[in-house]
């Protein structure tokens, strides 16, 4: 393979990115060296097993990926803003809608949510860490390496270009030669291993490590939704693992799982993909529901309305999420009776979801609502998400779906579900838990700019897509002719996307501004909140709780504040056991990345040789008998006095 096949050449946009990536890398390395921060980075971040730091790294990576996926989106909007534009050619457009989809779902939404789960869940259940801190670090590094591997595709070797769903036969070697789709198969496989480990980790954490007294029905709603999401992860991700393995075998080793000629079946891919893909939607949306529940209860100053019905709805949604996958391909040759069954199960999901919407509304009723930024995002979520949900029910009707299938109407629908359902939640969660991570609030004033620009931009961008979709525009068209009546809508939509991007820029500026200027003396409970994560210092100390709190009811911290039981007795302090940092997670992550890269290029000898790295990492991990260390009482006392004043 010659060098100009290895690097993608011939496109000025990509050349500019290659140069920019090179310069950024050199710049970052130079900066860290200049500041003499390598050791700090290694010991405080790269080898950390602290769930809060891992969460912050997830979120940081998620913001980066949001930028990348967002740029893809803006380029698509620019290309379709006028008829017959030549800004991107068809191939480049295909690559961009593929990477946009994969990155936004798997490398933006997932890490953002898992990041916030990481920061919040152990604190919210009154635990000192997750069940398997080292495995947690491994999950992060596998995700991160996979994200980098996937992202590098557009400058080295070429991007995947068969859509985020990568349907066969298109995604097979015959119709998509080159390494692009190998990146898809391998990078997502590596990320999937990490996600599965996260799922197991959080199930065990939530089942086994809750503070004494926190029974199932006293668990905060975010903890509930995270538990259910973790269960869906464990139930659904192995299906994707198998599907991707088949894809890898078909593409790299010439098997015939999905090629009709030798007895394969492309519909097998579709079924397996959506057996994972539909639950995946709920994997990302359920934690988001949990975040809204926390935020709405806090800023309405009421306990969550209909807590039990909320729990049953979440469990019901999880159950139904496994039974609806066929609705993604009603038009692909199922019998009418099969379509009817999946139509019904799909519409049934609207019932528990509707229950949740009404619960949020009733929580607001007669509440003393404070319009903080976190609350604004939650309030905007309800109507926007409802539009997504109602159009979803329209799509759920199999007969009607023949009209909408693969049109822009569908694209508008799932953006109305995923942006309010996930992105708004992530923003709400970031504003709400930012102090918990960093010890200061994001500016409420700049946050208003962020909010209004993004919400208005979002509606401007995606509302017109419903109408061009109904006017017959199918998805993934890179251009169109004049006179179809679409250009007005799409021009409008392109302007909207710029407004939305301005909103994202406002968020970035807000982070920068707040880091520099926001006041630091906000106390441990800046929002007058209800759950346990606020019962300790803000930002949380590395040991989380000096003494594990005891829970007697729902919203335990609210209760403690009412009873004046937030203090800490000196006699309650005991040495705290902590896990040690470890180099194996990052080492294993990188080793998986190297092997993955060689596999993408089908350099099997190199892949086999470098897999020694994975073996070394696993063996080292098995022989690691480190039992952690203890924080002495004196140190705890000092840290607790620093924010509590005197101890009782």
């Amino acid at each position, binding site marked *: 393979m010659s060098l100009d096949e290895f690097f993608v050449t011939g496109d000025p946009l990509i050349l500019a990115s290659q140069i920019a990536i090179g310069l950024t890398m050199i710049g970052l390395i130079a900066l860290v060296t200049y500041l003499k921060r390598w050791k700090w980075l290694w010991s405080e971040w790269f080898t950390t097993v602290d769930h809060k730091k891992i969460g912050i790294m997830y979120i940081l990576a998620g913001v980066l990926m949001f930028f990348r996926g967002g740029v893809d989106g803006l380029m698509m909007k620019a290309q379709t803003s006028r008829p017959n534009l030549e800004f991107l050619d068809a191939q480049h457009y295909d690559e961009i809608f593929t990477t946009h989809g994969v990155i936004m779902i798997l490398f933006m939404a997932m890490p953002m949510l898992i990041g916030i789960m990481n920061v919040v869940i152990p604190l919210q259940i009154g635990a000192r860490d997750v069940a398997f801190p080292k495995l947690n670090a491994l999950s992060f590094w596998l995700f991160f390496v996979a994200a980098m591997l996937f992202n590098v595709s557009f400058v080295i070797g070429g991007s995947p270009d068969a859509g985020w769903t990568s349907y066969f036969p298109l995604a097979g070697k015959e119709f998509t030669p080159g390494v692009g789709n190998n990146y898809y198969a391998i990078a997502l496989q590596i990320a999937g291993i990490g996600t599965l480990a996260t799922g*197991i980790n959080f199930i065990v954490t939530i089942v086994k490590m809750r503070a004494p007294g926190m029974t199932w029905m006293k668990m905060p709603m975010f903890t509930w939704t995270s538990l259910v999401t973790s269960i869906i992860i*464990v139930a659904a991700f192995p299906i994707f693992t198998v599907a991707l393995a*088949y894809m890898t075998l078909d593409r790299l*080793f*010439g098997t*015939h799982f999905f090629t009709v000629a*030798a007895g394969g*079946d492309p519909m097998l891919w579709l079924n397996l993909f959506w057996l994972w893909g539909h639950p995946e939607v709920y994997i990302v949306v359920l934690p988001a529901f949990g975040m809204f529940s926390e935020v709405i209860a806090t800023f309405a100053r009421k306990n969550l309305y209909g807590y039990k019905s909320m729990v049953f709805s979440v469990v019901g949604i999880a159950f139904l999420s496994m039974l609806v996958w066929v609705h993604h391909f009603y038009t692909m040759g199922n019998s009418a009776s099969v379509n009817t069954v999946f139509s019904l199960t799909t519409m049934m999901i609207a019932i528990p979801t509707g229950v949740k919407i009404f619960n949020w509304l009733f929580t607001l009723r007669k509440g003393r609502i404070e319009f903080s930024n976190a609350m604004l995002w939650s309030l905007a979520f309800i109507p926007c998400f409802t539009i997504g949900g109602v159009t979803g029910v329209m799509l759920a009707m199999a007969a009607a779906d023949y009209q909408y299938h693969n049109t822009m109407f569908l694209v508008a629908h799932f953006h109305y579900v995923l942006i309010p359902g996930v992105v708004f939640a992530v923003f709400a969660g970031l504003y709400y838990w930012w102090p918990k991570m960093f010890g200061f609030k994001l500016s409420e004033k700049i946050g208003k700019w962020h909010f209004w620009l993004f919400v208005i931009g979002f509606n401007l961008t995606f509302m017109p897509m419903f109408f061009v979709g109904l006017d017959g525009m199918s998805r993934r068209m890179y251009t169109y002719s004049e006179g179809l009546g679409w250009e007005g809508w799409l021009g409008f939509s392109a302007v909207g996307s710029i407004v939305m991007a301005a909103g994202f820029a406002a968020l970035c500026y807000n982070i920068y501004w707040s880091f520099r200027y926001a006041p630091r003396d906000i106390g441990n409970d800046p929002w007058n909140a209800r759950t346990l994560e606020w019962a300790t210092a803000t930002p949380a100390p590395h040991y989380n709780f000096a003494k594990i709190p005891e829970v007697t009811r729902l919203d335990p911290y609210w209760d403690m504040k009412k009873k004046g039981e937030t203090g800490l007795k000196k006699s309650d302090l005991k040495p705290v056991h*902590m896990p040690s940092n470890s180099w194996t997670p990052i080492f294993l992550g990188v080793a998986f990345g190297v092997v993955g890269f060689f596999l993408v290029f089908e350099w099997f000898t190199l892949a086999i040789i470098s897999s020694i790295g994975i073996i070394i990492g696993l063996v080292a991990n098995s022989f690691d008998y480190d039992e952690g260390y203890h924080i002495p009482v004196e140190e705890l006392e000092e840290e607790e006095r620093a924010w509590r004043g005197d101890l009782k």
Partner: protein
Amino acid sequence: MTAHTSANVPLEYQTNQNQMNILGFWIFLGAEIVLFSTLFASYFVLEHNTAGGPVGHEIFILKDVLIETFLLLTSSFTCGLAIHAMRNNSKNGLMFWTIITLLFGLGFLYMEINEFIHYIHEGATIQTSGFTAAFFTLLGTHGAHVSFGIVWIALLLIQLAKRGITQVTARKFFIASLYWHFLDVVWIFIFTFVYLKGMVM
């Protein structure tokens, strides 16, 4: 993270961390069940798509498969004896029965590799048809699990030799035994729904 001990339960259950590790592994086995179910389901979809290549009952040698089955089932029994020895705090017993288990595992792998070579000579490679792709992937995934298990448990034996039976090594052996029994269960399904069904249908 605390190391509460309670004496009335087996050694491997005595700390909270160990209990969590074992629970976590059970959940992992749940994920493995989903993984193998998907492989089985795909096999059932593709098993008749032979595309002019060999059909299952033309190439299966039931005698060899039966030997594989006995090797693996016996290894599960000796694996149980190993854990029994561990519960009796007999390091040598644990060591002995684990080594026997691994030998049975190696015997199984030897037979399976020979079986695969036989199929390839018969003209059934993984690239031949939808049927062979699904067949080799299902069998290969199980075989890869067995191989991984053998290496993993061999590493545990080194740790056992160095450290004796402690709370940590006991937990590791217990988890490895869960894994080993699980592979046995999967094999029973393979034996029934791939080989026997393939011979009959």
